[in-house]
């Protein structure tokens, strides 16, 4: 069995890694370089506090994999487990915070509703007037997405996977029961093609005649200069969409949840810089003296119903592995990749039925 994977982000590489662990012959195509897509542009927040109940088991399993994979692939993911805080700045979202905690408790995950004053006990410079309610989960924290991708790539290569960079897939042809994939003037034959192209997944699907219509979301992120470890947990305000934490290198990293766009666009805007600066200095006023060093934008996709799109399609052998969605690609991709590898190997896997691409 030969599998071609389109897109070397955390989803594509996780799938390739688990397939190759079972001895399957895999080639991965990346249109640019590793980390070009959303897996290289996000802020690395990971937690079981994911907003859709269906995804909690995958967030939990991914956290477990983030513990075990580094030694398996011999690469440190720089995972800082200092917890995850969600904030609400209006009453409607405060109710969502309460519901979120009761759902997590049903899964046996320890988490609690806390007041803004209690957030201040965790982050001393937090402004309690910037939120009405919060929740806290000790599981999770901040992972550095770059070594996750490099580490998975290394594990893949050790298992014999070929990762081709600067290799944009131009055409996919159905060829009997197989596929011919055209890349840089060369042709490759596969039994399965996995579409893990993130924001580019709609385009890849179109190559085999599938109109997928995943939502494309553009999001902007920035970092400040580095300071000593200061903000421990990952903080995400579900009302404003603003999130902030500190990287392993000491930079304060943060962004604002993105909006749906018509086409792929990774341009940076002053509007974002201003909105972020206003929001983050209200949340943690002492940050105001820090300088922003760099801002960037990324694009990712989300399934039309808000859930990932993972599994077999009406075209036998063409497999979706995309649409992972807002605030959760890094949180759920390793586990989804593992389950998708099982689906490809065995031909069925009830664990990911909810994400069936043919549900639409």
């Amino acid at each position, binding site marked *: 069995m030969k599998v071609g994977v389109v897109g070397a982000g955390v989803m594509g590489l996780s799938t390739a890694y688990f397939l190759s662990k079972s001895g399957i012959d895999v080639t991965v195509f990346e249109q*640019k*370089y*590793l*980390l*070009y897509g959303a897996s*290289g542009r996000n802020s690395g927040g990971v937690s079981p506090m994911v907003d859709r109940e269906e995804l909690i088991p995958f967030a939990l399993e991914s956290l477990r994999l983030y513990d075990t994979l580094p030694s398996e692939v011999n690469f440190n993911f720089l995972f800082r487990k200092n917890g995850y805080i969600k904030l609400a700045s209006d009453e409607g979202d405060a109710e969502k915070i309460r519901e979120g905690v009761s759902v997590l408790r049903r899964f046996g995950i320890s988490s609690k509703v806390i007041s803004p004053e209690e957030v201040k006990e965790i982050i001393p410079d937090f402004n309690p007037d910037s939120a009405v309610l919060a929740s806290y989960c000790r599981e999770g924290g901040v992972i550095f997405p*770059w070594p996750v991708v*490099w580490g998975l790539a290394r594990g893949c290569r050790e298992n014999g996977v070929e990762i081709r*960079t600067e290799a944009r897939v131009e055409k996919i042809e159905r060829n009997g029961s197989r596929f011919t994939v055209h890349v840089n003037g060369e042709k490759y034959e596969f039994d399965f093609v996995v579409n893990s192209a993130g924001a580019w997944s709609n385009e890849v699907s179109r190559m085999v005649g599938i109109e997928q219509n995943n939502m494309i979301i553009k999001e902007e992120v920035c970092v*400040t*200069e*580095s300071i000593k470890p200061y903000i421990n947990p990952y903080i995400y305000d579900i009302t404003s969409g603003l999130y902030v934490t500190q990287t392993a*290198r000491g930079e304060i990293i943060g962004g604002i949840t993105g909006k749906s766009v018509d086409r792929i666009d990774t341009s*940076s805007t*002053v*509007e974002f*810089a*201003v*909105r*972020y*600066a*206003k929001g*983050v*200095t209200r949340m943690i006023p002492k*940050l*105001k*003296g*820090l*300088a*922003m*060093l*760099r*801002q*960037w934008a990324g694009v990712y996709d989300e399934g039309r119903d808000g859930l990932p799109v993972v599994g077999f399609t009406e075209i036998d052998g063409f497999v979706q592995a995309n649409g992972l969605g807002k605030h959760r690609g890094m949180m759920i991709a390793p586990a989804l990749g593992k389950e998708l590898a099982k689906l490809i190997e065995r031909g069925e896997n009830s664990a990911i039925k909810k994400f069936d691409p043919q549900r639409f």
Partner: protein
Amino acid sequence: MVKERKIVCRCEDLTEEEIVHAIEEGYSDLESLKRYTGATTGACQGKGCLMHIVRILSQKTGKSPDEIGITTQRPPVNPVPLYILSEGDVE
């Protein structure tokens, strides 16, 4: 004897040897080398080090500086404190 250490990126305190090592590890295109070593991502955002990194990459890989290119230039041009940005107007 003091080992010769040629600092090529002052913000991130990187030596020429470390850059060469990363290239040998396979991080041999500029964007990957930047991310793996942290070169060009410190306070100077590449103003002080990018040309050194391009030179080393050119010497190691035999590619011309034109072929190597430069990293994506990202705003702001110089670091801007958040309190200044927060004075801006948004819709």
